């Protein structure tokens, strides 16, 4: 006990004590977080270390838990949409879409053509901003400070553009049951048309500067293998599973909206390591740009919301419905039970990050502390989404 003279002061809370029960003698129990630079917000991970090797780890959630599911039970269908903007601050539009889509499916509502295109355009732009945020933050986790500034440069452009159709910069809640809240104008289309070639021209530079960097490659290649079977047991989706070689994308597997009209590929990497997930996300920039190009060309004129759009007092038919969309982090879905009144009887939000993070404990076992940071970052965590 000479090592920690005041050990009795540092007994830890319920979770630490629960974790300590299985600890090996002579190992070091370490709380990483909730305030730690690379846990991306207030995630806490209890680690058992032997030197710098991780024997065991256990994420502790709940520091950002806001009980959106309970809030849903007391809000109207329309009033719950802003909550969707706050579930995942990195990529809120798929959440918008998941909830609105579930309600539309339940009530059998058809969405006007132009609204569908606006949804696709804004969602794909949101996917790019989310991946840019991840990219910068991930490289920051690996110790390089500069790329996040470059990423934010591009992200800024997109955020400025997205202000018009969504009315905000971060917590978008612009979708409505039966359409979208705001139309896009010519200035927006022009800005987007200018952005696409510019961003495309930046991508080779990122590859040279960051992806091909020898230190980065050594840090992420063959780190954190997640074979397909492991992904299946944990229900991982999104870039995590595509980085393990499976082309599973809700936009193709379970087409929603008008995604079946666009020509795009589902990038995959079969290395299963952090580099695979990294490359998948970088390749998704290009695919999102392709969808954006096509959508901007095809967008028709017309109304942006259905006639007689639901009012706050609107009541859908009773029944249950499950609706999934492809968010930036994977399968984002909403399960809704309606009893035919103004507010849902039960809302269940399925966050992709929740399942992806539950994989971490197994993937990080036996790795070095620095590798655990690399694995954690490669899962692309947004804590508010996981805690909901």
């Amino acid at each position, binding site marked *: 006990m000479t090592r920690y003279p005041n050990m009795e*002061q540092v007994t830890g809370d319920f979770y630490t004590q629960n974790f300590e029960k299985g600890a090996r003698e002579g190992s070091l129990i370490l709380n990483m977080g909730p305030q730690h630079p690379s846990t991306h917000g207030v995630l806490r991970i209890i680690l058992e270390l032997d030197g710098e090797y991780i024997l065991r780890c256990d994420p502790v959630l709940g520091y950002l838990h806001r009980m959106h599911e309970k809030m849903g039970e007391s809000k109207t269908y329309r009033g719950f949409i802003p909550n969707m903007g706050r579930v995942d601050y990195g990529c809120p539009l798929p959440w918008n879409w998941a909830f609105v889509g579930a309600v539309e499916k339940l009530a059998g509502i058809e969405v006007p053509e132009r609204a569908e295109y606006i949804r696709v355009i804004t969602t794909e732009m949101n996917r790019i901003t989310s991946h840019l945020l991840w990219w910068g933050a991930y490289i920051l986790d690996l*110790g*390089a400070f*500069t790329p996040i500034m470059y990423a934010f*440069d591009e992200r800024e452009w997109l955020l400025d553009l997205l202000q018009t159709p969504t009315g905000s910069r971060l917590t978008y809640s612009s979708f409505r049951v039966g359409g979208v809240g705001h139309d896009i104008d010519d200035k927006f289309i022009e800005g987007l048309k200018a952005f696409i070639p510019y961003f495309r021209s930046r991508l080779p530079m990122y590859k040279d500067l960051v992806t091909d960097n020898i230190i980065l490659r050594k*840090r992420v290649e063959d780190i954190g293998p997640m074979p397909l079977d492991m992904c299946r047991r944990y229900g991982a989706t999104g870039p995590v599973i595509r980085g393990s070689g499976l082309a599973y994308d809700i936009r193709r597997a379970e087409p929603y909206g008008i995604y079946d009209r666009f020509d795009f590929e589902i990038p995959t990497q079969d290395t299963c390591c952090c580099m695979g997930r990294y490359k998948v996300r970088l390749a998704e920039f290009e695919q999102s740009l392709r969808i954006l190009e096509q959508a901007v060309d095809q967008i028709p004129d017309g109304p942006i919301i259905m006639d007689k759009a639901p009012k706050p007092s609107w009541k859908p038919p009773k029944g249950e419905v499950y609706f999934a969309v492809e968010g930036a982090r994977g399968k984002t879905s909403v399960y809704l039970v309606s009893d035919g009144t103004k507010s849902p009887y039960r809302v269940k939000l399925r966050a992709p990050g929740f399942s992806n993070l539950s994989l971490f404990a197994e993937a990080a076992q036996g790795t*070095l502390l620095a590798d655990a940071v690399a694995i954690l970052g490669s899962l692309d965590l947004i804590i508010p989404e996981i805690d909901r």
Partner: protein
Amino acid sequence: MKIPIELIRIVVALVAVMAWVGLNALLLVYCERKYAGHIQRRPGPFEVGPHGIIQPLIDGLKLMAKQLLMPDGADAILFWLAPILSMIPVLLLFLCIPYSPLLTGWEVNLGLLLILAFAGLNVLALLLAGWGSNNKWGLLGAARAVSQSVAYEIPLLLAVLAIAFQTGTLNLTEIVNGQGSWPWQWNIIVQPLAFLIYFTSILGETNRAPFDLPEAESELTAGFHTEYSSMGFGLFFMAEYANMVVVCSVATVLFLGGWKGPFFDGWWWFLAKTYVLLFVMIWLRWTYPRVRFDQLLNINWKWLLPLAVANLLGTAFLMKVFA
């Protein structure tokens, strides 16, 4: 009693050095933030003074104004000893750097040896800081600092030794005098490998990115100085910059011809060369990701050390052949 002139000179020099260290730290902080800003396509500090020029001064004032905090259960003596211990040896090192033939605080015959000896003390400060602060992150940082410093000191010494072999002296002034004014007369032309090894090792010795593992903030929050605030942190901070200046000055002396340069020899050449090297160190930090700890040690034991030994043996052999 007559006070020896040498003693007066040292005291005066010491005062001058303290001022110089402080000034250097301010200048380097400003440079680092400006460089970083421009590398990242932003202007850097811009608000305080023209182009943010007095930003570092305000930063320093802010640090001094903050409360000194010590965590519960920390070893008070070790905890406060550490930042002081990190600062004092560096001051001593500044004394014996020859900025120009006349501008040397303390002319020592074995100047090179003195610098190497005292530069190695810095790691003790990191150890005590990490251990004394009763923090597991600090402890991990200290453990990293030890193995890193033990590892990187060896190729550093071997690379320097090759120069000592070649010039046959440990006196810094004489080493500079052995080189000419023009770049092709500098030691770097004769000993390029030694220079590369030296430069890589000083990144490891001064804990600068990509080898900044003892304080790797994305892994160990802040490593050994997690618990330090106010001037405790400020001293570590200043010592880090002062150490950078020292190792770059030594590199200038050993490899880049010291104060000698085309047309007009003088201290301005010395400062210019030192600051170019410092700029490279800063540039590296804002460009590269951090290596992993086992990779760091692998680079040292599998590449730098054998190369340094080979370089030393080669130097000795050639000296024997051509002498």
